[in-house]
């Protein structure tokens, strides 16, 4: 703490500004706990999906529906966005605010591109395949699981955008750093969930 204060007084932040204050450490810890809860949330959604994934009620099945190249493109976008958020945190640890901002912006844009692809995918299913929320138990489970993930992505985009604004306004401090760090944790979590969705929903649906 004392060294952290001394460095801050000289105008440079400590190496890990997100963990420089008790509030910051609390925030990071509580966010790990929150992600534990989120894991249960998605776990339950996955269990529901697995239980209902063959209940197509004479509607379209996964094998007929999914178009893997599109999903693969979306996956690539999201995985790369996780990497760019790592670059953002590395820039933060170097104290380079401009690079931090740029990498966060790239992350948000990649997330946005992912979300647009997902909305396009859903709209194709609904308009051309007559595959809506009410079609079958499979469709309900699909839209709920993948839609929940999509809502998480959308929230993450809004959140990180606000944080970029805050970063520009207030600079990198021991108050803003934990928020940015935690949002990067969130973004990785979303990414991990998507890896499971890609495997369990799309790959298993296509070949299983």
């Amino acid at each position, binding site marked *: 703490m004392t060294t952290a204060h001394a460095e801050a007084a000289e105008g440079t932040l400590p190496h890990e500004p997100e963990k420089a204050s*008790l509030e910051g*450490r*609390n925030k990071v*810890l*509580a966010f790990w*706990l*929150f992600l*534990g*809860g*989120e894991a*249960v*949330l998605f776990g*339950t*959604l996955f*269990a*529901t999906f697995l*239980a*209902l994934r063959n*209940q*197509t*009620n004479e509607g379209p099945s996964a094998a007929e529906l999914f178009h893997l190249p599109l999903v693969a493109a979306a996956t690539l976008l999201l995985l790369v966005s996780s990497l760019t958020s790592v670059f953002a945190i590395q820039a933060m640890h170097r104290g380079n605010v401009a690079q931090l901002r740029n990498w966060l912006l790239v992350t948000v844009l990649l997330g946005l591109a992912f979300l647009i692809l997902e909305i396009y995918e859903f709209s194709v299913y609904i308009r051309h395949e007559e595959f809506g*929320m*009410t*079609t*079958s*138990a*499979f*469709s*309900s*489970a699909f839209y*709920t699981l993948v839609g929940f993930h999509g809502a998480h992505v959308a929230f993450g985009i809004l959140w990180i955008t*606000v*944080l970029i*604004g*805050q970063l520009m*306004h*207030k600079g990198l401090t021991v*108050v803003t750093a934990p*928020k940015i760090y935690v949002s990067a944790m969130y973004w990785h979590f979303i990414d991990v969930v998507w890896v499971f969705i890609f495997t369990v929903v799309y790959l298993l649906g296509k070949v299983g």
Partner: protein
Amino acid sequence: MDWITTVDHKKIAILYLWAGGLFFGIGGLEAILIRIQLIKPMNTFLDAQTFNELITMHGTTMIFLGVMPVIFALMNAVIPLQIGARDVAFPFLNSLGFWTFLFGGLLLNLSWVMGGAPDAGWTAYTPLSGKGYSASHGVDFYTIGLQIAGLGTLIGGINFLATIITMRAPGMSFMRMPMFAWATFITSAIILFAFPAVTVGLVLLTFDRILDANFFNVAGGGNPVLWQHIFWIFGHPEVYILILPAFGIISEVIPTFSRKRLFGYSSMVFATILIAFLGFMVWAHHMFTTGLGPVANALFSVSTMLIAVPTGIKIFNWLFTMWGGQVRFTTPNLFAAGFIPTFTMGGVTGVMLASAPADFQFHDTYFVVAHFHYVIVGGLVLGLFAGLHYWWPKMFGRMLSESLGKWTFWTFIIGFHLTFFVQHFLGLMGMQRRVFTYLPNQQFDTLNLVSTVGAFLMGVGMIIFLVNVFLTSRRPADAPEDPWEDGRTLEWTIPSPPPEYNFKQTPLVRGLDAFWKEKMAGHKGMTPAEPVGPIHMPSATILPFLMSVGIFIAGLGFMFSRDEFSSSIMSFLFNNYIVTALGLLITFGSMLMRSLFDDHGWHIEPEELEGR
């Protein structure tokens, strides 16, 4: 206004206590109405629909809106004090947790005046809770109201976990932590891993009902048993969310009034952890009769019975603590002592129910009703009474009357056993639960009458407690720091009620039962771990209240989004999700405000601290 914007854990504790007490009263009145209806065969006091609504709301209200907030009240009042902290880790979130709970509870109870309460039982089994059998908005109030209230519980759980992990006073290792703090820690962990499951379950049911999804609708390929799995993988751990804090309270009260340290402290800690772990492994014992098959039934049967082992360890440790101690039967200790045999009886019938073949006989009879009331009323509610009488002077600075407290105890516990002991026999003789009446001359008549008389006696006990609270509130707040004189833990080292900052100087902890250790060493108080300095406090804020109002409005808007309204303005607002969006806008706007304007808080200077 002060109460709406407060972020002080001690004030939030009092808010939880009043709100929880209010809902507890509503749930109690519902119970009394149920018992009046069942006082004699073929009674016409209530009709079947009202009865269904009453049993559903009684169970839901008592569990989610009655006892859980009172547990949270005690945790909020005591935990930071017991671990030597100035506040919880996230005071803002603490306030948010309370307000979401309150608005969720209000939404649920609005159903009484907005076209019918939920009527599918507190477990909301599908397809009974589906649109086909429950077409009114009742179950929507259940799914959305509980969703909002559950959010508050989850927030509270994460907050306590972080608080206990990072904010313990110097010297307080985990194995020097008071048992109530341990119980809170483990309970919060269960909340964290159990509540997200019911969150999903409620979302799925909401989608089935409002968006015509097919999760539980067999005609669309759905599976009703899925609901039971999701509900009970939350619902069984929920039982331990309720009972572990009571265990924690008993483990505080008995050593204090026995003038002995808790027998087998470390075995108590590990028993608590083991119970929490096993609590997640046994959910399907609620589902023996759904046809899971003999293998699943056997496994869940055995894992359920295993829970009796750590629970037995706890029971014996309490008895050994009292053994040879200088036991004083004050009101709190009376409740704690009453807890032990009563809870044990509930545990014994639990082992009986865990036997799958026997469960086929007991299932959905009053035997089950008797069992879980022995555990939850005879266990948890007695534990809460013990805790409330024990910590009341710390929370309010006033001692509750001992003689009225003893009256409360005796009327309540006699009423309790009258009400529920006979229900074991009613169940064994074949009386089903959830039926609104029964035929005469099945030998049910007398026992039901006894049960109803007992329920009224419990009501009398509650009224005596309220009278006690009222009379106490008119007396001056002059309770000493350590009113029971044998206080063992840190909360008894500071004034009653504590100042806003709790500890002027963070205490140094030198062992288990930190205060007792200092007393035995001949010291008057704790050794401070830091010099007197300015204390940083968080600012009061209205934002948590506004966020919760926003969620409340959004919930109402979503619930009525598919309705037909007579006025075109109303249908425009609701059917286009405008009300929903407005509510979400308030919530997200408040979140944005929180994000954009940092709270720098304020400081209490050393001169002010000395001035007191």
